């Protein structure tokens, strides 16, 4: 069902984890549809993405697209990171099954959400960046386990 690259990124995901005091953090998706991605960016004063980490709740494709997205933006400028589309993520993974295309969209959204957070914190405007849809936990009650 999955390409070798997807399986590789699922089994050995790159850049899993958190960044403390990250320059920007974005969380997208919701538990209802079964995928949540959180992206952490460390951006230096020249606007270069020095480091990136992610955490994902979701299926094999969700983990693999998150992992690939982090690879594609690491070391890049903000402008370059803005060019990382869901299509680019999918191509880099040698494709996804049709029902999993939404996972790659989520990966693109996660990068954008983290950049949006960075832009807000630093009171700057990133060209072409729109406010992320913040549907995580929306309408869900507080949970106790």
């Amino acid at each position, binding site marked *: 069902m999955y390409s070798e690259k997807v399986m590789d990124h699922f089994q050995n995901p790159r850049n899993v984890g958190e960044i403390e005091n990250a320059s920007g953090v974005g969380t997208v998706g919701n538990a209802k549809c079964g995928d949540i991605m959180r992206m952490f960016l460390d951006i230096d004063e020249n606007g270069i993405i020095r480091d990136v980490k*992610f*955490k994902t709740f979701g299926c*094999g494709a969700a983990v693999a697209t998150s992992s690939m997205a982090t690879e594609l933006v690491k070391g890049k400028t903000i402008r370059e990171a803005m060019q990382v589309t869901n299509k680019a993520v999918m191509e880099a993974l040698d494709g996804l099954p049709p029902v999993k295309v939404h996972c790659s969209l989520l990966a693109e959204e996660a990068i954008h959400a983290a950049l949006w957070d960075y832009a807000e914190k630093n009171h700057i405007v990133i060209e072409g960046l729109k406010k992320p849809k913040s549907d995580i936990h929306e309408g869900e009650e507080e*949970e106790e386990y």
Partner: protein
Amino acid sequence: MIYLDNAATTKTAPEVVEAMLPYFTENYGNPSTIYSLGSGAKKAVNQARRTIAAAIGAKQEEIYFTAGGSESDNWALKCAAEAYETKGKHIITTKIEHHAILHTCEYLEKKGFEVTYLGVDKDGLVDLEELKAAIRPDTILISVMFANNEIGTIEPIAEIGAIAREHGILFHTDAVQAFGQIPINVDELNVDMLSASGHKLNGPKGVGFLYIRSGLKLRSLIHGGAQERNRRAGTENVPGIVGLEAATTRALRIMEEKTAKETELRNYLIERIEKEIPYCRLNGHRTKRLPGNVNFSFLFIEGESVLIMLDMKGICASSGSACTSGSLDPSHVLLAIGLKHEEAHGSLRMTLSEENTKEELDFVVDNLKEIVQKLRNMSPLYEDFIKKNQSRK
């Protein structure tokens, strides 16, 4: 390989294959013909009918062979609705039925029937008081599954049968998961129609039967030739029917031993998981449960990821997560027992057979522990949960 998906399908037993083979190669005649090659096949079909009738306490003329559980369910519901619509157009079923029932009910709703979908409690049991309250003067059919395919809960079929009988309402049960696994007697249970399938009890795929109590005016679903006493057209699947018979004979012979072994393995697996993997929940009733069924939700993680990682260790299981259903919604059964979406996404079903061993289950739990931890370590939901707990301290 460790196979823990026996509710999906089972390995065809060697004695079943052996019984079937001559009906492909030597006794391949059409049962409707008059020469001896054909009459030999006809004899085999009727012998199978007797065996299966005896297995559920029915008469042989009450057993009709079909292409499996889905056809039997479609036949029972569509044709009972059609036959009794002059009496009323109300049907009662449950929210946890197989899609063969639920989607047939949706079809009937489009045809002008009204369907009440009974809820279930947190263990998946139908509430008998709710059932009684749902009965109306125009109720013509109650259809409740014998045992649930996902969570293994066994429904109070005898009690439901008694209620249906008392009100003069037809009672159908989808026994696909129960037939050959637990004893069934249609008279004791007041069941009027019962669906079953061959491949869930080590028989072949593509064959099943519908029990129809004599006297019921059920017409054909499949029109054509005069097979199955004019009620189900199409040349009989003779090898399949012979295989279904062999599987039934085998299932009855080993039932007691199989149930004891599977129950022990099941309880061992449940106990180890509950003891060793935190933040999990057993889905389904603890004791009113199919002997081979284990279903857990692991919080903060998603089922398909677990399945792929288990598969890499050679372990076959299944999940009620959306990613495995082909839609964005997780299992309707898990939502019906009150699970939140993320709990339903994190479900894992392991259905055992008598051939599994404790050693296999030890290997499964050892790997499952690691897999769950690995996925939790990359889960933002787990991160939020841990941080919330720390901030409380």
